């Protein structure tokens, strides 16, 4: 699944570590999501959307 997590995170000036702390996940998880190698679970996707203040479908797109 494609996503705009990196773009939205950088637009907020957050580091990967900062986003990881906000989400309660490891930095490796954020890296894997941004590289589109790992699709987050639905609850984690909702938390990402909440932190980035976007709807899920504005962040994640079907491949």
């Amino acid at each position: 699944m494609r996503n705009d997590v990196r773009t939205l995170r950088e637009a907020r000036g957050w580091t990967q570590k900062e986003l990881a702390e906000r989400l309660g996940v490891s930095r490796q998880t954020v890296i894997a999501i941004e590289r589109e190698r790992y699709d987050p679970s639905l609850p984690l996707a909702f938390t990402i959307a909440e932190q980035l203040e976007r709807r899920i479908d504005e962040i994640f797109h079907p491949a």
Partner: protein
Amino acid sequence: MTSPNFESDFSGWKRRFWLAIGAYVVILTVAIRWLNTLETVPFWAGPLAVLVCLLPAGYALASGAILTERHDGLERSLLHRSTSIAFFVTMVTCVTLGLMEGLTRTGPISAWVIYTVGMLTWVVAHKRLATRLA
């Protein structure tokens, strides 16, 4: 910060895990020495010793399960997937060895074979999945 911190929870879990493994080794050593001191071993002594040894191991397992339940993410996915693969391979190994022992003249095969196959499979599966996903 809105969520529990993964890094601090993970380092806390590592400390608890190794403490539990240490307790397991100590209890196992004591249990073996105790069983060896008995003139005749009552039927309940062996299972009791095993159960007592499993207490810290169960604690280590439970604290790992709590950690992965608290924190969604790559680690949970890696753990679940690699454990599933290792469980399947371990079960197949058990059945194969059981059949070989029962149907051939190979004699009893060491349980360390099952442990080694299971652990090696888990480590290899975890490493390969981590390389692919991370």
